[in-house]
């Protein structure tokens, strides 16, 4: 029973500090102000060539953006800016 309590305590503490960590995580001013075109050039090439904006339509880019947000663990802000840029440039 004691071991169970210790485990519960450790999990609670981990969750508490995890939540604190997440709450304190913010991008720097320079990162937050990056435009979509720059994020597109920086993030896509980590795995493959940067896609041509004309490859997909606006609504298709929204699906691709969602897919890549999950696949590449991009933040919501990064994906929103990249998709906005691609929709504007296609």
């Amino acid at each position: 029973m004691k071991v169970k309590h210790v485990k519960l305590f450790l999990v609670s503490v981990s969750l508490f500090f995890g939540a604190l960590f997440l709450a304190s995580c913010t991008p720097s001013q320079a990162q937050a102000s990056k435009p979509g075109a720059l994020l597109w050039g920086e993030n896509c090439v980590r795995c493959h060539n940067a896609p041509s904006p004309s490859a997909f339509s606006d609504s298709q880019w929204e699906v691709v953006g969602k897919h890549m947000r999950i696949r590449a663990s991009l933040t919501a802000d990064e994906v929103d800016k990249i998709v906005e840029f691609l929709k504007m440039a296609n």
Partner: protein
Amino acid sequence: MRKVLLILVLCTAMLSAQEKPGESRFLLRGYAHSGVEVRGDETTFVGGSFNPIFLWRQSDKLLFEAELEVEYENGETLIGLEYANMSYIINDYATLRLGKFLLPFGTFAAKLHPAWINRLSSKPLGFGHDGVGPARDLGVELRGGIPLGEAKMTYSVYMINGPALNDGTNPNVEPEEAGMLLYDLGEDNNNNKAIGGRVSFLPLSNSSMEIGFSGLYGKVGNVESKYEDVAALLYAVDFSYVSKVSFLSGVVDIKAQLNGVQVDDASYFNVEDSSNYSFSNKSSAYYVQMSYRPVNMSTDFLNSLEFVGRYSELSFPEGALWTSDQTQYAFGLNYWVDWRTVVKLSYQFADTGAHESEGEEGEASNDAIFLHWAFGF
């Protein structure tokens, strides 16, 4: 007059309804590849594969994705399910994923294996079928990316059915490979679920460098067998650096990954001489790859070229009936027709041999030339 007005109102409503995009979106994407291969005296066209990816964006929070792999091999058409899962976006930094998904165990299987992304026609040693480490499984995962000031990190924690131990007792599953882990079996072979995760850091402000650490632990033995308590620890370290290098007038892309598997010691039955044997069950595989693509050169042709080199090594445990040490060198020249269409010419040679400690030289050298084309769509 009233009828005309009503019709006009209805038509306007229908037209405006058509203009509204709605929340749901469906998209068919994927990739395909094929080519010709020269191995020794044999030259053959290979069917390659066709991998349609179905993406269904149900709403801003929900996405369903599935990938099929359709291959033509030895006169047969084979269809496999690469993944099929549902993702629910909890908040800006967390997504919950359920179903069959590509495991974030390193980056090769999860991100880099598609033919239009992989810079070479072949996979590194130990990163294909019967490799070291899993590629996909069924389970649940929490993942996301988190900004850390100028830097960034990504994380993933998951619970899956996990690998199963080939204990050599099933004659249908190659008894001579006793001790090897089997991946992606569909159903679990015990009640234990494997726990794993990956954390990666992107320390540079332009996200050009990523260092990742992955781990997976769980019992792998069949339930109610003498191997029930046999567990395995799997780990991976991966590295990526992609950047434009001014003095080379081009983009340099470096990728590397090390996979390791440690299975608890156990005694297996040798079907060849009816004896029992055991061994230190540790396997590993790694690769280092570097590619260079010129940019801002005088002609489009030069800007479309890419040079690639890769070294990979695979080591299966000494004392197992499947013991082996292999090394492979691969070199390639790619021509990019556009950002997602590539023609790849590559040459590779590999040595398959016994352990160095046994004092034997490589048993065979497998040279091959590949001319493949691949495209993403």
